[in-house]
């Protein structure tokens, strides 16, 4: 089904996707003329394929569950924020806070993602084919972030147990973020993720892994008198 945002209101488009017509059971949608609208495809809960033709605004595919959404353009702040499951593929660039607080699913960004990519992520896998901006992975808790390009300042600041894989240069590491060894399991997982994003020209071994030094968030009995 083709949904034209020049003819339909944003709320009408989202409602059609959030409450599927069971009789028709059409689960393939193309959205045209998104024109930078915010919260497009937010709060979807069922399996469906959506192709958005053009640039979208903030919080696209936010809270997504199960839906497969492709954006043939750029996205604004907070794409796939708080995603639970499903797959979001951005063919252009993403603005700040891509995949913020997301619990699951897969977010693929073909271009660059700007600052705070994967902020407070809680289990999502994020794959960025370009570079990420400053403070990416800030306070991230679990999941994997893969960056084929470079990372900006303060990568992984105050992070918990997220694995961050960077192929290019890291401008600087944030508090408690350190480079870590890649063991067999990491290589295996990274190869799987690269395959999912259809990245054939880079080997898992060409990436470096970053994670938590676990000095910031672990409670130490030696420090009990400070509390």
């Amino acid at each position: 089904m083709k949904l034209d945002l020049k003819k339909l209101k944003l709320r009408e488009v989202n409602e059609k996707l959030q409450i599927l017509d069971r009789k028709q059971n059409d689960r393939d949608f193309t959205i045209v003329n998104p024109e930078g609208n915010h919260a497009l495809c937010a709060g979807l809960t069922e399996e469906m394929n959506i192709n958005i033709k053009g640039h979208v605004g903030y919080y696209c595919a936010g809270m997504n569950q199960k839906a497969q959404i492709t954006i043939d353009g750029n996205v604004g702040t907070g794409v796939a924020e708080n995603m639970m499951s499903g797959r979001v593929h951005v063919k252009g660039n993403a603005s700040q806070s891509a995949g913020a607080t997301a619990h699951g699913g897969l977010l693929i960004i073909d271009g660059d993602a700007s600052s705070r990519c994967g902020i407070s992520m809680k289990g999502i896998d994020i794959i960025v084919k370009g570079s990420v901006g400053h403070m990416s992975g800030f306070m991230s808790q679990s999941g994997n972030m893969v960056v084929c390009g470079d990372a900006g300042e303060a990568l992984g600041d105050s992070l918990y147990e997220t694995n961050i894989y960077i192929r290019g240069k890291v401008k600087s590491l944030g508090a408690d973020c350190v480079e870590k060894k890649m063991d067999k399991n990491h290589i295996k997982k990274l190869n799987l993720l690269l395959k999912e994003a259809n990245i054939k020209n880079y080997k898992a071994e060409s990436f470096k892994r970053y994670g938590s030094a676990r000095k910031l968030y672990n409670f130490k009995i030696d420090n009990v008198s400070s509390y």
Partner: protein
Amino acid sequence: MCGIVGIYLKTKKFEKSLGKMLSGMLNNMESRGPDSAGFAIYKNEEKKIFKYSLCIGNLDFKNFKKKISKLIKKPKLNQYSDHVILKTPIEPKTVIKIINNSFPEISLVGYGNSIEIFKQVGNPKDVVKKFKLDSFSGTHGIGHTRMATESAITTDGSHPYSTGKDECLVHNGSLSNHNNLRRELVKKGNIFNSENDTEVAAGYVSNSLLNKKSLKDTLVSGLKDLDGFYTFITGTKKGFAVVRDEIACKPAVIAETKNYVAIASEFQAMAHLPDVNSAKIFEPEPGIVYSWGN
């Protein structure tokens, strides 16, 4: 919150529709700033003619015309809502003195050989209509929709701020050291007409340009001297520049085609622009000054 927009034409193709392009951008930024709106349009320089953008408020235009004609010889006057563009070859020093002494109720919004500035309290859609922005032509323009945070909803508190000849500045964000900086700039001779933080940033730029610093160098040192959150667009006779603070919480997106460069807080502000879907679209990086035409 606030919305900021700007458009700089690289070729002459869209000069006649500059106003229309800018008004569409302002209309689409209503959601970011419903309290007041304003814009600056740069037209080809009229040499030896100065243009003064005046907000006459409730003053009767006919009375103003009568009175000003006695003080300034043959002024050319164009009225747009409560604003008047006064054209005369008389130098700013003299004209500003006349305005301040004889019309204390009028505020000088800006002046120069090229710039025309309009700003008013109200919904951007209404403001744009009242000033007939659609009918304007020009080489570049800057606009602002305001969601007031740190000072009152007044015309004086609206953007753009112009504190020097053919200069203007719009701002999305808030400054935290503006009171201190204002005091320092006042000592250096700057004059401020409001309590607004953005006017201080505009004054900072004017002061630096007056001391023969380039716009780019000015904004680079501004990264050190201006504390707070900001995306600025600063306009000059030749073009405009964009800078975001190093934290870059305040959004900005740029679209560049062979005919124009557009900047806005959000992409939806420029979704209506010609060829935008094939434009090069990117976010200005934090702490980097981008400029066109300067």
